């Protein structure tokens, strides 16, 4: 029994904190927020050189072949730095999708390039008007043709589609299910991911104006997009649930890192900020806010580590573990980033102060890969209520 990160994982954390401290300080985050794409090829190169873009890519395809728990450690650091851009979309979600659902040919075509930072990919799943992270929500149709498929439909909230070279987009091949329990597992029957390149005629990508300016959440319209049979990721319906579990764990990791950093910054501030002739951090009213944040963060961390570990080591435990970690970490991030703003007081409400970066990221992450009520219902089903 050993419930702790390994020495290598601790090293990865130190290395990531150091590199991100140099390469992705708040000033660069803000520059990227103001840029059109929020994507910085130079930063991407730094991540590629550190081996991060291929952290989940198998070694024989040019990656580091590490576990999801390793990625959780790295994502925690990225969450601390509110790193902009497509890391989560491309190096976690799309990489897991290719790894678990893709053919060998698809993997060979994309994963080595993604690991080197030569290509960016993203997962396009959600649609309106009822955005949901399961198969039931997939209504867009793939119409069979003689030599492949014709894709029609609109995907929403597609992370980093504006900078992606490859969309892994979910379409329904058969008739939609008549009635399905919400969030039920195995609900991806009849759904497949299609690998669609950015240059495909009929594809239109439009970034949505969003609170979280560190990322570009996009609308992706497929109008009469023609793809060959080889565009289908063959193991999609069996693997999609697992890919989304991995995504949920990744978002949870980012949330926890963000919560941890927001609290640190706020605690540092109240240590020195004085009112009534004493540091405001010496008031118990302020101390208890901080203590409650700690008491929320630490148990959530245990759920997160367990989920990251279970994803590879105990796959049967992973769906429940992922759902629990996502709920806990996303809630903690929302609560703590809000508390942190209160601890800063008036300055925390300004654009100049960094707290709103965390607060907005927390709001965006709360719904990414399934919101709280979705995952609580999954917990209820998976725990057999």
């Amino acid at each position, binding site marked *: *029994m*050993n*419930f*702790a*990160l*390994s020495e290598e994982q601790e090293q990865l954390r130190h290395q990531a904190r150091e590199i991100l401290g140099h390469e992705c300080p708040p000033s660069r985050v803000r520059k990227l927020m103001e840029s059109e794409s929020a994507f910085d090829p130079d930063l991407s190169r730094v991540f590629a050189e550190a081996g991060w873009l291929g952290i989940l890519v198998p070694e024989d395809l040019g990656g580091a072949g590490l576990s999801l*728990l390793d990625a959780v450690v790295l994502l925690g650091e990225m969450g601390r730095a509110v790193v902009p851009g497509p890391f989560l979309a491309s190096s976690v979600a799309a990489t897991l999708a290719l790894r678990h659902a893709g053919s060998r040919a698809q993997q060979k075509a994309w994963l080595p390039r993604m690991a080197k930072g030569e290509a960016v990919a993203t997962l396009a799943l959600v649609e309106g008007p009822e955005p949901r992270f399961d198969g039931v929500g997939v209504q867009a149709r793939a119409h069979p043709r003689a030599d492949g498929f014709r894709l029609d439909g609109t995907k929403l909230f597609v992370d980093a589609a504006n900078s992606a070279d490859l969309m892994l987009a979910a379409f329904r091949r058969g008739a939609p299910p008549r009635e399905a329990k919400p969030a039920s597992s195995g609900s991806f029957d009849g759904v497949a991911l299609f690998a669609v390149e950015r240059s495909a005629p009929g594809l239109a990508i439009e970034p949505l104006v969003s609170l979280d300016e560190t990322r570009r959440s996009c609308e992706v319209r497929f109008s009469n997009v023609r793809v060959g049979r080889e565009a289908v990721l063959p193991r999609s319906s069996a693997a999609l649930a697992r890919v989304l579990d991995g995504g949920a764990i990744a978002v949870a990791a980012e949330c926890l890192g963000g919560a941890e950093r927001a609290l640190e910054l706020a*605690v540092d501030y*109240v*240590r020195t900020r004085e009112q009534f002739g*004493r*540091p405001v*951090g*010496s*008031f*118990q009213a*302020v*101390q*208890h806010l*901080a*203590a*409650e944040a*700690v*008491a929320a963060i*630490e*148990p*959530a*961390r*245990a*759920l997160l*580590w*367990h989920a990251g*570990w279970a994803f590879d*080591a*105990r796959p049967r435990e992973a769906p429940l573990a992922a759902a*629990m970690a996502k*709920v*806990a970490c996303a809630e903690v991030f929302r609560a703590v980033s809000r508390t942190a703003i209160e601890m800063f007081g008036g300055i925390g409400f300004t654009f100049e102060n960094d707290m709103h970066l965390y607060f907005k990221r927390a709001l965006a992450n709360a719904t990414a890969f399934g919101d709280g*009520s979705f995952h*609580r*219902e999954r*917990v*209820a089903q998976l*725990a057999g*209520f």
Partner: protein
Amino acid sequence: MDLDLASEDAVFREKLRAWLRQNLPRTARRRKVSQGEDPGARLAAMKAWQRKLHAAGYVAMGWPRQYGGQGATLMQQTLLSEELVRHKAPGLVGMMGLQMVGPTLIHWGTEEQKRRYLPRILAADELWCQGYSEPGSGSDLASLQTSALREEDHFVVNGQKIWTSNAQIADWMFCLVRTDKAAPKHAGISYLLIDMKTPGITIRPLLQMTKDAGFNEVFFDNVRVPVENVVGGLGQGWAVANTTLVHERNMLGSTTQTQNMFEALLRLARAAQRGGRPATEDPIVRQRLAGLKIQVEAMRFNAFRNLTATLQGRKPGIEASITKLVTCELNHQLAATALDLLGPYGVLYRGSKYLRDDGFWPYELMFSLGLIIGGGTAQIQKNIIAQRGLGLPRWK
């Protein structure tokens, strides 16, 4: 990360489970809240259970062998307490001695004190109570006023203790007293062992909101205590007591108990009706239960994490405070959810013909509130987390 047990630990747990299946008293499997039982007979049965466990080597396993323990690893001690709770074994009547005084004596006591007290703690021949809080000294424990003035080879103790659990059945009290009124607040305190049969001690039961009389006021009127009953030296009481406060916080925050309680809540929800169907089919109930389940599991895995840190030799920090704070509140929320599911049945109490689950839930709702306050209030735990954990400044 690896959650599998080492093979020797797995073997240990199998043997323990087999022993529990053979030896667990059938009538004691459920926590008895219903009254009407003769207290004397109940006490005798509780002592018999501890002796049975002791004979099998399952009491105070972590103590060194020369003092009657097994020198067991922390892992095995944890497995033992988990399995006892999981099998709903009765609690140990000598818990105060086993968890608090025993470890204190092993750490601070003289050889003579160890030989005198430890065997009787193990065998439940002597039961202990804790004399810390006073009417004027709750969270600010170090302000305590009960005095012990030296007269030749005795201390003469005068004052009052309060919230003293089980004083009515205890043979001994471990007590914090002021032996030096001139010294600074913390430095004037000593840790004293007091025989409860000494003349001058009066015990007055306090009726709790649960209608149990589990705790008491204890009055000292010129109580003579031999000087050799001081532990750890004169004026060392604060340091001596602090070694065991950490044990108390761990004791109060058993996450296995919380898991059991969640399972009981789930059974209740399955049996309760909403719109003619089991309440577990109601989306609102499902959301609430799932939220609680997530918190229960978080504390379970957090306990693994804390255990690993301790096994790796990391010094204890604020982990015990987090566990105490979160687990006690979570227990309270589990009971509150049960009461909501029970509707008007939830407020029926002992003696009602319509009582559900032996009245466990309304009892637990109240009892858990007591634990949120006892053993260092929730607010004191938050002070500890903020000041010791985050290094925020204390204001004096």
